[in-house]
């Protein structure tokens, strides 16, 4: 039984900035702490790398603190299902185990949002993050003509990275207008993470990557693979760019599957938490991107607050309430600055694929009233991505809500469902 059952006082799901910070804080108590991470490496979106020493300074700092703390780290382990309150099913490449906890911190991050437009499913059209991963993994990019399009500060980070790997980044097309952006940029110095933003802009400028605001992709061209993209501006003008690769991302959306499965209240697309980062469900806490996509500083602070709160160290938690407020202000500005323009909701034509796992087109979805009937009649959202992409796309396109999540949280082997023990220890 012992290798299929583990018990910790505190279980943290996710070893990104939020989860690592939570572990560091929670470890300053006598409670047992475990961190479950589906990736082989810790660090999350930002710092995930085989070699932690290669991460930026903040990353090195937090990796060192995390390593030094007593939390028990289990990598390549995905939380697949919630069996009962206090009981998770976790899958590893070789097997599965039952994980019992007294208190849980969800620090499961966010994912890129894709928007369907004609041609977006052509080969060589990627998510911006996916393109960055390709770059990191050593994919040959030398001399490749690349367009990065969509929205948010990440486009700059991705553009800069691609440039460094020798790609010819023809442009970064940011859908938000200069007016919005200026407002965003102007307010920024009063807020915490300003340096980051400036660094991003400077870096991409220094590398000679043109940053175009108020442009968005309306069509990717090509027959069996990408040959070019048409960008549009608010005044109606279009611009055709011949390119080999296109990386698109329209901001980030929180990962809510686990929170939904556990029954946590969701408000405006984020997990509702109180000042202690506690959700509406007893003993369940949440930190980082699922409570609001606001960058690394927010994730680190919320992670620490949650870590202190679950181990009854309220004073240490309280000391971080002020800094947290600043990051929340930053999140608000970020959301306003990069709000998606309405034109993006009308790019699909009847034969544009909206759910790419199940090849469901916009025309097929026309008969559906909500996400539920779409699932029922077209299987939209029933494929391997479990609706992660099309649920956000259809939310943006049609205003559909995803009211609940069906287990598993992540795809899980049949065998793992056999292995789960149902009796509590």
């Amino acid at each position, binding site marked *: 039984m012992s290798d299929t059952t583990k018990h910790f006082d505190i279980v943290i799901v996710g070893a990104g900035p939020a989860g690592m910070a939570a572990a560091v804080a929670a470890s300053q108590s006598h409670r047992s702490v475990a961190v479950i991470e589906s990736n082989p490496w810790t660090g999350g979106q930002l710092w995930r790398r085989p070699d932690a020493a290669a991460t930026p300074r903040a990353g090195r700092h937090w990796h060192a603190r995390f390593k030094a703390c007593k939390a028990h780290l289990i990598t390549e382990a995905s939380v697949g299902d919630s069996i009962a309150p206090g009981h998770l099913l976790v899958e590893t490449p070789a097997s599965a185990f039952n994980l019992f906890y007294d208190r849980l911190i969800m620090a499961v991050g966010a994912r890129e949002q894709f928007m369907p437009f004609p041609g977006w499913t052509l080969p060589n059209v990627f998510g911006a993050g996916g393109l960055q991963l390709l770059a990191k993994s050593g994919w040959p990019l030398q001399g490749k003509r690349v367009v990065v399009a969509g929205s948010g500060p990440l486009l700059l980070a991705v553009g800069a990275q691609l440039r460094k790997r020798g790609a010819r980044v023809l442009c970064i097309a940011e859908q938000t207008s200069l007016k919005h952006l200026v407002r965003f940029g102007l307010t920024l110095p009063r807020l915490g993470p300003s340096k980051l933003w400036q660094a991003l802009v400077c870096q991409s400028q220094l590398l000679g990557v043109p940053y175009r605001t108020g442009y968005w992709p309306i069509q990717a061209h090509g027959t069996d693979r990408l040959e070019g993209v048409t960008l549009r501006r608010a005044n109606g003008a279009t611009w055709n760019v011949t390119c080999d690769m296109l990386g698109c991302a329209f901001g980030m959306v929180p990962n809510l599957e686990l929170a939904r499965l556990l029954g946590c209240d969701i408000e405006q697309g984020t997990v509702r938490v109180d000042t202690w980062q506690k959700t509406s469900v007893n003993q369940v806490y949440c930190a980082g991107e699922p409570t609001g996509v606001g960058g690394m500083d927010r994730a680190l602070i919320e992670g620490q607050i949650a870590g202190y709160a679950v181990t009854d160290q309220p004073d240490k938690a309280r000391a971080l309430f002020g800094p947290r407020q600043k990051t929340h202000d930053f999140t608000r500005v970020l959301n306003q600055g990069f709000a998606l323009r309405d034109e993006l909701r009308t790019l699909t034509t009847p034969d544009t694929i909206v759910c790419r796992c199940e090849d469901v087109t916009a025309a097929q979805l026309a008969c559906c009233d909500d996400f539920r*009937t779409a699932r029922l009649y077209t299987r939209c959202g029933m494929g391997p991505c479990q609706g992660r992409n099309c649920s956000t796309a259809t939310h943006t396109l049609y205003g559909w809500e995803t009211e609940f999540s069906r287990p598993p949280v992540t*795809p899980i082997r049949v065998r793992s469902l056999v292995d789960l023990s149902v009796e509590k220890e």
Partner: protein
Amino acid sequence: MSTTYDVIIVGAGIVGCACAHQCSQAGLKVLILDQGPVGGQSTGAGMGHIVTMDDSPDQLALTHYARRLWLELAEDLPAHVEFQRCGTLWVAADAEELDAVKRKVSVYQSAGSKAQVLDARTLHEEEPHLNPAMLGGLLIPEDAVLYPPNAARYLVDRARSFGAELRTGVAVRQIGDKGSVTLGDGSSVEAGLILNAAGCGAPALTPHVPVRPRKGHLVVTHRYPGFVRHQMIELGYLKSAHSVSSDSVAFNVQPRATGQILIGSSRQYGDDSQTIHHGLLSRMMAQACHYMPEIGALSVTRTWVGFRPATPDKRPLIGPSLVSDKVWLATGHEGLGIATSLATGRLVADMIVGRTPEIPIAPYSPARVTQENVVHE
């Protein structure tokens, strides 16, 4: 306003839709109502196996008739109904079950259904991923699978082409003995006849309807085209499905047109919650791994539960209710409602317009259920 409808059908599950199709095709003016979308309850949760079963002569007559109607309709079904004549393969795990195969083959054949005994070698040729310990099987080649909610939608669209009216998102609060329904907003609509096809919701609308929800779990995997070729069921299913008192699981897998595999099944009374019973789910998956060891490595993308509208004697209720000759029933199909929907629709229409039904209808008459035997075991 005076009555304009001959029949109001309450419930747009596959049974209500099939009845709407047949009634409107027979010239009746039909209104079909559902509180939710078409096929959103049992029909959306079920497996879609068009199976002939021989638990009793009545069951064989109904399922065989129904399958014939599906095969006749097959040509017309649009692609999204995903109708595939993949056949049913009943798997024998021991000598006793192998004996059952030999008995069953003649039962099927005498009812006019193709049936074939498979020895161990042929069984493993047909389904290479089965556990080599399996001894043989019974192949019913004309059985099929389909995607139930789209089948229901197709049937209701056919009904509309014959003039039927569909209203979704309209809850029926009450069915009146004299042929009326009261809607959620308090208004009422009259008709010559009200057909209660509300599935598990039927007993709430008509007294003395002995239907209880029987919960079932299902699992769907990623796409593995060709991993499973037939709908396969263990013959032990007959033993477990019969026990109405205890929870049971059985090996039951279905190849989807998409290459995904549906894995079932479980049967449970007395648990009306939407939550997954992990103990039962675990047993169900263990059973699947026992019959197909390599299924253990396949990736599950979704698990869910649904409810079968079950009667005590495992036969559906089709025809006038005990309450009034203006209130009819078409429900209680338990785990065979998809398969037998077309037959149900045909029988209901026959009875209403006075055509001679092609099979005896007495076994399904709601009149068989008197007050005393309403109790479930």
